[in-house]
């Protein structure tokens, strides 16, 4: 229970810091901390495989991709002087922010209300979880074989699409 609250607090705080930072590099680093806490929660849920791929794939691969792009673009801060000079601040930007924040607060209140108002006893997590990688792999390649193959097509499309999109206009180099 203590571990749950510890990981939950780290995850929520790190996620809040992600959206509170102006510098995207710090955002990415805090998101990695948040993923680490979520990985601990997966261990508490007896899902060690998900916990490991959360660290390796999410924190290790996807976040490094984000870091690469942040450093490649070299435009760390939002609302830079150039942006202000070019007058890109829409007059409605502040209102959009307030509206978005209110919308998010309404969303969290609504979700918590839905969970708490269902008028039932809290469902205890009991019994054995499926922690065996063997069972997961067997299910993945039997019951979920078709979605798994579709996933490979998705990755191919993403690969080709990102190469085409990020290619320079002149077409002489990648």
């Amino acid at each position, binding site marked *: *229970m203590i571990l749950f609250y510890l990981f*939950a607090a780290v995850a*929520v705080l790190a*996620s*809040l810091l*992600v*959206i509170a*930072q102006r510098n*995207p590099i710090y955002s*990415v680093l805090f*998101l990695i901390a*948040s*993923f680490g806490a979520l990985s601990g*929660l997966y261990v508490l849920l007896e*899902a060690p495989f*998900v916990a490991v*791929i*959360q660290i390796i*794939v*999410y924190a290790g691969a*996807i976040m490094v*991709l*984000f870091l690469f*792009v942040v450093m490649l*673009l070299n*435009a760390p801060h*939002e609302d830079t002087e*150039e942006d202000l000079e070019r007058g890109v601040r829409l007059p409605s*930007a502040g209102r*959009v922010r307030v509206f*978005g*924040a209110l*919308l*998010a*607060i309404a*969303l*969290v209140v609504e*979700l*918590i209300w839905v*969970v708490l108002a269902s008028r039932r006893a809290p*469902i*205890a*997590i009991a*019994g054995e*979880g*499926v922690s065996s990688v063997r069972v*997961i792999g067997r*299910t*993945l390649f039997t019951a979920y074989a078709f*979605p798994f193959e579709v*996933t490979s097509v998705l*990755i191919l*499309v*993403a690969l080709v*699409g*990102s190469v085409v*999109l*990020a290619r*320079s*206009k002149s077409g002489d180099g990648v």
Partner: protein
Amino acid sequence: MPTLDHYLLLSAILFAIGTAGVFVRRNLITILLSIEIMLNAVNLTFVAFGRVLGSADGQIIVFFVMTVAAAEAAVGLAIVIALFRHRESLNPDMYRMLKW
């Protein structure tokens, strides 16, 4: 022991933080990071439900969600790079025209 409701509430809070990030931040990369927060909140729900139901399906769906997140990050960042080449800015307010 934490109950299912604990995990659902945590997931709701994380999802709302991600939603707030999409609206509040004016930086394309931070907006993509907020989407990742939302995807992770959903992953937590899947794993928690799979644990309660004693089935491996929740964890397998998380596997697929991670694949989609990786594809989304790759394509999204490629679009961000292509946009940045045009305007030298990550501010989404810069991109108000469909064509220029």
